[in-house]
């Protein structure tokens, strides 16, 4: 078993009085990319923000290596952010400041955390861009975000995230805004990062992305983890009805093309109207009276799943 870089236990986040994350627990292991999947509004991005200290943690524990970070002061968080935990965002166009060169923005992060001269910071920036396979890196560093292609922008974003050698890289939908061909390149790059540089937590709504680049996966729904395990186990035999529905809604690359792609009827609940019992029960085809009680995550068939269907038969 690889050592955990990040251990999250019973993480709860409350925003304006509403419970957004409800006892979320998972680990990110060194060298293994963790995928966090779910529909919009399932709490994926809030999880990322909580791990960056950008939203307050209501309760629970978040451990980086052996250091507990829940409850740190804003100043202490600032020293961690960008240095030990870094983040890559969905749209690299709007995530970069449009009026300063890409290189200057990477330099800024390096110099915010380390005492380096401008020239040394720029040298590292160029080196990072080269490692992200940006062609003509010194020249590219002087360009403005709008002068780069989407793929190059996202490579620059990843270079910026890695600029202070963080332990954990959180990528929030890093390929959603990109062309399909570029997506594959960025995912390959992230795979390499996870083996060489840092733990990677990849947030996505796309099961295909998970299959391509993750080793472990956490399936979230309405602020709750419903299934958790290794990618092979879960993709081969999803147990939770929500995971099954998500898989059914993903088209197969080979094999017959379905006449109509399956959808999940209904909408994910808003934090205000979250059901008392199992969160997926209102949209679930297997719902019955036992679902009025919230099922805990239990180990079953090589993964953890929160569903009454698998209780008792471990």
């Amino acid at each position, binding site marked *: 078993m690889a050592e955990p870089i990040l251990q999250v236990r019973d993480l709860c986040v409350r925003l304006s009085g509403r419970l957004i994350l409800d006892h979320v627990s998972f680990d990110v292991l060194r060298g293994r990319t963790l995928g966090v999947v779910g529909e919009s509004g399932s709490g994926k991005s809030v999880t990322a923000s909580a791990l*960056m200290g*950008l939203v307050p943690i209501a309760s629970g524990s978040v451990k980086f290596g052996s250091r507990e970070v829940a409850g740190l002061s804003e100043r202490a968080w*600032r*020293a*961690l*952010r*960008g*240095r030990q935990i*870094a*983040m890559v*965002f969905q*749209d690299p166009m*709007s*995530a*970069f*400041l*449009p*009026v*300063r*060169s890409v290189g200057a923005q990477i330099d*800024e*992060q390096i110099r*915010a*955390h380390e005492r380096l001269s401008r020239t040394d910071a720029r040298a590292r920036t160029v080196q990072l861009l080269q490692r992200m396979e940006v062609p003509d890196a010194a020249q590219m560093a002087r*360009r*403005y975000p*709008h*002068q*780069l292609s989407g793929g190059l922008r996202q490579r620059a974003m990843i270079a*910026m995230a890695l600029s202070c050698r963080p332990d954990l890289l959180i990528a929030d939908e890093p390929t959603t805004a990109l062309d399909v061909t570029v997506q594959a390149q960025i995912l390959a790059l992230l795979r390499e990062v996870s083996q060489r540089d840092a733990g990677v937590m990849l947030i996505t709504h796309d099961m295909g992305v998970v299959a391509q680049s993750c080793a472990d996966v956490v399936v979230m729904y309405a602020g709750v983890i419903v299934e958790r395990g290794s990618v092979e186990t879960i993709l081969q035999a999803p147990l939770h009805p929500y995971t099954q529905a998500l898989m059914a809604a993903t088209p197969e690359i080979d094999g017959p093309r379905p006449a109509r792609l399956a959808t999940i009827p209904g909408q994910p609940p808003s934090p205000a109207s979250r059901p008392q019992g199992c969160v997926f029960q209102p949209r679930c085809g297997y719902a019955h009276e036992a679902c009025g009680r919230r099922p805990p995550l239990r180990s079953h068939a090589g993964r953890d799943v929160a569903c009454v269907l698998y209780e008792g038969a471990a």
Partner: protein
Amino acid sequence: MRSVALRLGQGACVLVGISMLVFAVFFATPGADPTARIAGRGASPQILARIRHDYGFDRALPVQYIRMMDKLFVARDLTSFVDHGERVVPEVFAAAPVTLSLVGGAAIIWVGLSVLIGVVCALWPNGIVDRVLMGLSVLLLSIPVFWLGEVVNLVTQSRYHDTMLFSWVPPLGYVPFLQSPSGWFRSLLLPWLVLSSSFAGLYARVLRAELMAASGEDYMRTARAKGLSPLRIMLNHGLRMSWLGFVSLFGLDVAQLIGGGALLTEVVFALPGVGHLTYRALTDLDLPLIMATVLYSAAFVVIANALVDLVYLALDPRLRTGTRHG
């Protein structure tokens, strides 16, 4: 290079258009005929006819227009219709440094003050400091400049002038910089503060609103995720983007003030600036002086617009398309 030439051409067209408009309006205004005024009371018809001929008022309007433009720009010996023999161009050039000093100093003060207030308010939005400063800026914004100026004069010139606090205040009026730099500074300090007050209030509010709007943007989230301090985020990211709206507002305000918009401040503090001159020209319906001051202020608006465009190019590389291949 081509765009610069285009801009210059545009500016020239604007100035020609304005000069024609001013000229036409003057002759369409009832009672504007300068002949009677130049001749004085009870002049005989013969004298009126001679003056009309001497000044060229009996010629066709286009000819009069062209002669006036020639005297204004080429010969530069255009004389006032009201004050005999008073040359108009040197008058404007004598008034311009006063107004430039007044507006330049005030602009520095109001930009500095509003950036300070805007950034502080955006750093701690809805806190006590924010509320107090925003209230203060509404107050500054709504105090009329002539009232504030008169009150300042009352306090510093008469009532408390002999106290320690205000004994440095010179009598009203302008001291040229070259004559005495310290006198120049002392004569202008209070006018600067008075003129900048309402602009400081307005600009602080505009900047705070821009910064607050920017704080929800993705690039601000990135800045936070980089682990920068709130001040760095505000200055290097928020302010860097919010400058854009600020600059266009600033360019136009400064241009209209230099062009004579600082009239009230100039009158209250007895500064012989362009606003004063324009005011005199208009009350006397003195066409040569009106023409000179209006064209002078229009030229500043055109120049300021061009400068704003240049500053935009410097601040926002996205507008520089075509200069470099991306």
